[in-house]
């Protein structure tokens, strides 16, 4: 059913339909509308869950760890400083192989304090072992939650998942959403019933420690699970498409890429702006296309290399910066994916701390890339430096 809804509310509704038994969250801007909506659902018996109002984010995710290990589907949401506060648990939940799903309303990290959007928060967790999905719009943000649970809980994956969507830009924006029904969700996402859980009938120890004889293999297993997740995402993304008409089988998605000479690589809501800019550039005869990365972990290296094999140059947009390295994390990883090809890869760090990126900026970046200028911040206010 199509309805005009705020992004956060649409996400909360999707979470409700996934029937988590335990929701545990701590309020932080701009995630608050999600957790308020969920609290409202619980208060009105529209969601049969225990809602734990924890005292901070570290405990928010810790409670999810306990609930998930006890065999319940669990959910949390956070952003920015909150995600950093729970960092230790982020890594822990992945290592314990607990399929928790958490929404990230992407926001910059202080200092300086900023409540506005970029992707530094979730990108900083890229080595944690969590699957990372990035939404371009609120429809995708909504749908990715169903997919995230399905993939995370698959027995060949058993890893937690972030569903990332841009704070304010998506979380506080009203868009028309096609919300699938409870019946349909139940059909797609069966009840969570893990083979192993904390249970007096079959006592298991969770979270033991590993000596050097075992530790490496546990990390290897996590890496393999990440890699297996690619196929699982393809399978369940396709199933979603067959059932509901929106296919999420691809980890990356091309737009006007077939004959493109310059390709832009981007994640999240900026992709919408890029598409509009491409339409205008195409009208001017410029062969520009977009490769949208929907899944950042597992990182789709092969898919990227394949999709960009024919382009001359690539401009990677990063709403994050790996300080002291060569640009943002996406550019670094795309460059690695393209290693050995003749394609030039240039990175552009932009949109940090909520700075707007418009169509003209995208066009400017394309012309910089054409000139071979890149691997730099874009849009710096020179008068301040």
């Amino acid at each position, binding site marked *: 059913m199509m309805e005009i809804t705020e992004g956060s509310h649409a996400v909360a509704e999707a979470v409700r339909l996934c029937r988590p*038994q*335990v929701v*545990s969250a701590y309020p932080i801007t701009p995630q608050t509308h999600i957790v308020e909506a969920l609290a409202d659902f619980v208060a009105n018996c529209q969601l*049969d*869950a*225990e809602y*734990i*109002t*924890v*005292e*901070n984010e*570290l*405990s*928010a995710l*810790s*409670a*999810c*760890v*306990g*609930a*998930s*290990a*006890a*065999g*319940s589907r*669990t959910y949390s949401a956070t952003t920015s400083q909150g995600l950093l506060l729970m960092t*230790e*648990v982020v890594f*822990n939940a992945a290592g*314990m192989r607990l399929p928790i799903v958490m929404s990230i309303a992407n926001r910059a990290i202080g200092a300086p304090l900023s409540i506005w959007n970029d992707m530094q928060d979730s990108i900083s967790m890229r080595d944690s072992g969590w699957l990372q999905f990035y939404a371009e719009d609120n429809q995708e943000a909504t749908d990715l939650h169903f997919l995230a649970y399905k993939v995370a809980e698959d027995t060949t994956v058993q890893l937690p998942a972030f569903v990332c969507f841009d704070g304010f830009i998506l979380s506080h924006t009203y868009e028309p959403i096609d919300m699938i029904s409870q019946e349909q969700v139940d059909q797609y996402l069966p009840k969570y019933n893990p083979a192993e859980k*904390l*249970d*007096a009938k*079959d*006592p*298991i*120890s*969770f*979270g*033991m*420690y*590993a*000596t050097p004889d*075992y530790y490496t293999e546990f990390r290897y297993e996590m890496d393999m699970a990440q890699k297996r997740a690619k196929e699982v995402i393809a399978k369940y993304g396709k199933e979603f498409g067959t059932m509901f008409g929106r296919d999420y089988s691809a980890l990356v998605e091309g737009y006007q890429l077939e004959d493109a000479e310059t390709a832009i690589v981007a994640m999240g809501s900026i992709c919408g702006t890029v598409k509009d800019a491409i339409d205008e550039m195409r009208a001017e005869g410029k062969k520009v296309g977009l490769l949208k990365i929907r899944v950042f972990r597992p990182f789709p290296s092969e898919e990227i290399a394949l999709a960009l094999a024919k382009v001359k140059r690539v401009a990677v947009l990063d709403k994050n910066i790996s300080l002291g390295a060569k640009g943002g994390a996406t550019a670094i990883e795309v460059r690695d994916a393209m290693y050995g090809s003749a394609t030039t890869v240039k990175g552009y760090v932009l949109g940090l701390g909520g700075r707007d990126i418009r169509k003209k900026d995208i066009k400017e970046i394309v012309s910089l890339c054409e000139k071979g200028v890149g691997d730099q911040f874009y849009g710096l206010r020179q008068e301040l430096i």
Partner: protein
Amino acid sequence: MACKTCELFDSGHRACGGCGAALAARLVTQAAGPESIFVSSTGCMEVFSTPYPETAWKVPWIHSLFENAAAVASGIEAALKKQGRKEKIVIMAGDGATFDIGMISISGAFERGHDFTYICYDNEAYMNTGIQRSGATPYDASTTTSPAGKCSFGNNRPKKDMPAILAAHGAPYVATASIAYPADLMQKVEKAINTPGPCYVQIHAPCCTGWGFEGEQTIAIAKLAIETGLWVNYEMVDGKVTKAKKVVRKPVTEYLKTQKRFRHLFKPKAQDAEIAVIQAIADRNAEKFAIDIKLPPKKE
């Protein structure tokens, strides 16, 4: 349900010979029985009982991190509620995890009123990392981060009053116990487990390695702590002390002398002023909990 003949904490664990905490784990798992789920914080007990794949826990057990056991337990409790399950939840955490790093998550979980029992096995320092001071380290104990030296008598603060803090959270049942009194300990753990809401039991568990004494003395030293009034076994129901073990008190030196961590109070010379401070702590305990048994005057 308690199972006094069950061995739910298996032999083969790697605790030091004479470990007070290992005995506490045995007694607490027996008092809790097989229908319970245990949550551990990072620490000595977690390490000596669970090197993969050799778990000593015959009950369901989970360890996540150092500071979050109470939050993990909150999540388990919520999950069990939704699944209609009846297992009891017992946290086993050391004093560092309880008094210091886990304080926020404990406060949050007690305030929210989850139904679990939080057991702190109190060996009065960070033993796993090599005997550093914690908020539970007693006055003048020498640890590796509060060493006695030419201008220091060791730890310069008294123990944090954790039971009072948790009673102030509205915990319906708070108790202290000692491995030297196993029947009392088990009774208190059982009572805590069967009391709805967040309950707290703090167990004095001497550490032969950290305190500096022979493992065979573990129980004897735990007993001396009580007999000198430096540890009081008591119960609080709804914030009020209802019971405290009475003793014919011995001077604190009888306890202090037995352990290397207090050796600097006696050698190279007796530090009477410092010992007097510790005696005053015991005297205050005795007064506060009214533990002194007054012997009738001896007949001439």
